[in-house]
């Protein structure tokens, strides 16, 4: 198979504690980013509608017009749907632009669908996530139809931008809390 995200780190960030592999029937939710069409045209259009010097400045698209521009090709939709159905995946929903699919399935099905992946639970504070510490692959003939699969490797955001800056103040020894303001 092909690894769409070979360069995506799979290690859990600091603080997330492995809590074992989930059971085969455990429900996981995957987000498939389907290959879009018309991205080059989209870039040209964005430039035209965003530049005050352009005659088309402010002529924005509706969601339907955007869909007509970027929606995946029929071949992409057919290939992906056939692949999912081949693995018994039925519970999927799409978005208005048809370029994402969100599917629920048992972990065992997901691991067959995405060879290499293994779904484990990780815990941190009161939070729990299910991720794969191993890279996933997709069949070769799917590579031109799927950008990536979400829900496997990226952990929830840790950046509490506000408190970190504050925490930074806390962490700097010897610096009284208010000194930065002073």
């Amino acid at each position, binding site marked *: 198979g092909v690894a*769409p*995200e070979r*360069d*995506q*780190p799979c290690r859990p960030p600091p603080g997330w504690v492995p809590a074992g592999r989930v059971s085969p029937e455990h429900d*996981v*939710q*995957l*987000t498939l*980013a389907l290959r879009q069409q018309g*991205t080059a045209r*989209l*870039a040209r*259009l*964005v*430039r035209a*509608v*965003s*530049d*005050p010097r352009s005659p088309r*400045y*402010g*002529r*924005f698209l*509706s*969601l*339907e017009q*955007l869909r007509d*521009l*970027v929606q995946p090709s029929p071949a992409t939709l057919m290939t992906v749907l056939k692949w999912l159905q081949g693995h018994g995946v039925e519970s999927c929903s799409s*978005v*208005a*632009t048809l370029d*994402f699919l*969100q599917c629920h399935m048992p972990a065992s099905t997901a691991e067959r669908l995405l060879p290499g992946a293994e*779904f484990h639970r990780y815990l941190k504070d009161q*939070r*729990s*996530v299910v991720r794969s510490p191993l890279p996933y692959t997709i069949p070769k003939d799917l590579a031109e139809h799927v*950008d*990536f699969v*979400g*829900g496997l490797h*990226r952990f*929830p*955001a840790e*950046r*509490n*931008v*506000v*408190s*970190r*800056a*504050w925490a*930074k*103040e806390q962490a700097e020894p010897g610096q009284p*809390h*208010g000194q*930065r*303001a002073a």
Partner: protein
Amino acid sequence: FHLGVTPSVIRKRYNMTGGDVGLLPNNSQACAQFLEQYFHQADLAEFMQLFGSSFAHHSKVDQVVGHQGWGKAGLEASLDVEYIMSTGANISTWVFSNAGRHESQEPFLAWLLLLSNMSSLPWVHSVSYGDDEDSLSSAYLQRVNVEFMKAAARGLTVLFASGDDGAGCRRVPGGNHTFRPSFPASSPYVTTVGGTSFKNPFLVTAEVTDYISGGGFSNVFPMPDYQVAAVRSFLRSAAKLPPSSYYNSSGRAYPDLAALSDNYWVVTNRVPLPWVSGTSASTPVVAGMLALVNDRRLQRGQAPLGFVNPALYQLRERGHGEALYDVTQGCHLSCLDGAVQGQGFCAGPAWDPVTGWGTPNFPRLLRALLE
């Protein structure tokens, strides 16, 4: 003098008068953050009671998209809501909340799907989210970038906090250091907001850089046309630059502009808290102002601003240099090593990778963006 940043301090510093409030019922703004935090309507009401007496304002978020549980309010969620509604005063406000998400969901990705699935959305989105560019796969980066293009094509203005790590720092194979850009701050299709501090923290004075203000150059996205001239001018005229091996001088440079990011008052769980800082504070402040500009544009029958960067980078050449206060003093942090000794880039005239073009002078910015 003042004891920290409140809405009236911000509105005074950026010359917003009592008349600078939203008037249109069909204008709207939104904030999103992905730390599974809740905000409390009661905190917002209390915040406005304490700090909102000098301007007309809503005291309630009109729409919450996603889960709004019953847990404690989070600092970041409270800050986002309270300050976008202070500069985007009297404008209908939405909150995208991902608290209580499915345990195998990616909260930020889920938000992008929502944008692709909702035909009516607020025009302006303030997003407090950032990750290290090098912690994300190139397939993901490229696709998420296309999602921002889609938003821009629909006329949405999407703003991201530039991050609180200054230029950032990481060790590359071989042991050398390099700066560490943040994403989505480094996407060419979002407006990235940096941070400043008052020169005299207890007076409404000129601003200097906030040393935590995120900024730098993308290692993934090339420099977009709209900023080439501004960035080239900086690289040519900067009194002091870090070693060139620390950053990709041909990458998308950010932030685009900035606002105060230091010592905010926030009400959370009924308690007013001081000393809250970060570019998560400056981003909703700028977002609210742009929502107010939209309010005036829509009143005139003009289209909303949409992706605002091309217009922003043309302000000076179109004679609207006064639309932003140029922040020229101070640097932001970076690697603690012998080569750069903890210093990243430094602010300078016009655009710089610490505060962008500077901070909004609202009436002048409004006039420029109504043209």
